[in-house]
């Protein structure tokens, strides 16, 4: 009992930063934007509100990712690239499913009329279809 006279500072020193991991903090605090006062001495009430997202991304997107921030990738406004990618992906999907159905048909055609052996010519016909409409 008497040896416990050096009170450990563990409770006193406890920092009140609570739940805060940096990305969580930034999610909340930067969400509302940052108030940037041009010059407090001259134009005290003329505050400019900048979208922090744009401002900081111009500086470094890599840095943002390093810090665990990636919302800009999901923001259609900030990630024109992602939008582009999505469109391309859609076109690829469409083409693939088209090709898939062609392959399926040629397979069932080959399976169904194995004696005729005309599977190839039917797929040739289909290929000319999109070609015509494209030109």
């Amino acid at each position, binding site marked *: 009992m008497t040896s416990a006279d050096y009170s450990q500072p563990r409770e006193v020193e406890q920092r009140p930063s609570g739940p805060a*991991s940096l990305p969580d903090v930034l999610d*909340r*605090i930067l969400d*509302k934007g940052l*108030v940037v006062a*041009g010059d407090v001495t001259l134009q005290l009430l003329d*505050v400019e509100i900048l979208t922090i997202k744009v401002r900081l991304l111009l500086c470094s997107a890599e840095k943002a990712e390093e810090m665990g921030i990636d919302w800009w990738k*999901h923001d259609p406004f900030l990630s024109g690239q992602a939008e582009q990618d999505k469109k391309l992906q859609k076109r690829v999907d469409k083409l693939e*499913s088209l090709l898939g159905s062609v392959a399926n048909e040629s397979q069932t055609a080959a399976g169904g009329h194995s004696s005729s052996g005309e599977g190839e010519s039917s797929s040739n016909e289909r290929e000319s279809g999109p070609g015509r409409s494209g030109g």
Partner: protein
Amino acid sequence: MSASQAQGAPAAEGSYLYGIVPQAAAVPRRAGFGPLRTVCEGDLQAVVSTVSATDWAPEKLSEWDAVAERAQRHQEVLQGLLEHCTPLPMRLGTILHGDDQVHEFLCRAHAKLAGALSAVQGRQEWGIKLTVDRAGLASQVQRQDPELQALEQRMAGTPEGTRYMLEKKRDRLRTQRIDGEQARFVELVRGELGHLAEQRAVLSARDECALNDSLLVETARADALGERVTALNDSLRGLAAIELTGPWPPYSFAPVIQLGQETQQVDG
């Protein structure tokens, strides 16, 4: 008045405003960007400290590190206030010309501030994030979905070209099924936790999260929320996990209150 003219340019200082607390609330003696003090008006207390304007010049804020460091200090002060009552957080970088301006702001925006402050009193913000184990879900849907199994069977013993197409088809279907399951989890979590909350805010999307929300929850219900999250996590059987963070100052539920501009005719 002109005491600071020795250097030509006066050292610009401002009053940094972290947030507003009720008049009766205790304010810890803690430093934020400087020692804390309060400016009072009626039933409102503004928590401020003096900052140098040059520290907050726009050029100083164009680096992530600089902004993150400031955000964390802002957070620490508000988190400290939260130990005594729920503060109404101001946005990062809210700086007024001096305490007189802070006082003027309290007067001018009194009704809005008092309303917003009482709306968050006795409540806290809690973060919920949901991460989904997509690989785990993939093997689950592969085991359980009849359509996927049928495709798998068709793939066995088909020639390579066709097989490739079937594989693509299976992958697409599997992704759809995983997305569907994920959406179901999100709905489940929002539904189950939503009724413990008074408001919900959807935060920025994140790669690793299927859901990143904040809830405004009565302080008295915080324990119930924690228990609900534990129970839900058990029921998700490792296929998804909810992470609860908080309590936070109610950042996501504080309205943006304009600092001024309306009353410009304050000539002495």
